[in-house]
């Protein structure tokens, strides 16, 4: 998150300052791509389409950093849906185990396994969740959106978002516990 400088940065981008836009892009793009990797099968393409739409609407946008992120992730979700390659195509069963995952199943190697637990592996674990839980966790934890924003984006009530997030986290924690990962 850019924080206190976001307003100035956004104003600069609106005025055509390429450095200001680059700062916003670099701040949001990692979370955007990781989110799209969960809900879309062509995340880079969808991210590109998202940014084109964001750029086109930049001068009309009004709001703070949280509003900007909510707006951008709403666009991303819509573009992913338009692309027709969203969550339904993801396998509903747990993914193939990577080498790092296999290490997790050996309790006496738990510490080493946690070291080896890459962002990629964690992403795969999240993707193995039911699609609504996975998406909500990504929007809450990775995109940094609050429950209200996520509820608006996914079209659920705030209560339903909270329940889905909790269920997803419990499943993930259960996988962590089964793998014998302790800190």
């Amino acid at each position, binding site marked *: 998150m850019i924080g206190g400088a976001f307003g100035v940065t956004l104003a600069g*981008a*609106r005025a055509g300052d*390429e450095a200001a836009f680059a700062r916003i892009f670099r701040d949001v*793009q990692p979370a955007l791509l990781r989110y799209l990797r969960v809900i879309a099968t062509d995340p880079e393409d969808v991210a590109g389409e998202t940014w084109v739409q964001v750029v086109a609407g930049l*001068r009309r946008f009004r709001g703070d950093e949280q509003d900007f992120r909510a707006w951008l992730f709403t666009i991303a979700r819509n573009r992913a849906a338009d692309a027709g390659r969203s969550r339904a195509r993801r396998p509903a069963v747990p993914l193939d185990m990577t080498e790092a995952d296999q290490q997790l199943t050996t309790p006496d190697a738990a510490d080493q396994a946690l070291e080896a637990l890459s962002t990629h592996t964690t992403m795969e*674990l999240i993707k193995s969740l039911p699609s609504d839980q996975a998406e909500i*966790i990504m929007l809450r934890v990775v995109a*940094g959106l609050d429950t209200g924003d996520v509820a608006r984006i996914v079209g659920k009530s705030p209560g339903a978002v909270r329940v889905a997030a909790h269920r997803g986290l419990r499943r993930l924690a259960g996988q962590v516990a089964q793998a014998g990962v302790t800190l």
Partner: protein
Amino acid sequence: MHNEMPGFFPGRPGGEHDEPLLDMILERRPIPPGAPPEIHGLARMLAAVAGSAEPGDLAGQAAAQAAFTRLVSPPGTSPAALRSARRSLPATACPDSTTPAMATYAPGR
């Protein structure tokens, strides 16, 4: 089919008792030391996913920047346009500066 997993507190079946801890994870707040190890592990895993960019996470910046230049930047203000404008200026137009555009707007001149 099995039901939702039980909560993390021993002797307390049902998930509702772990909700404060789960909310801490969602809000990226520090997890109390006494929380179950799997909660700490999960928090660390998710913090890593939400963390700083990795190689490849900035893919598409050139394309996005190009779209920005095309759609938002006023004509003639992109670095490429400024370089082009600089090259096209006669040497006498800016004898003491490598930034002719700035010289035009320098205060006090």
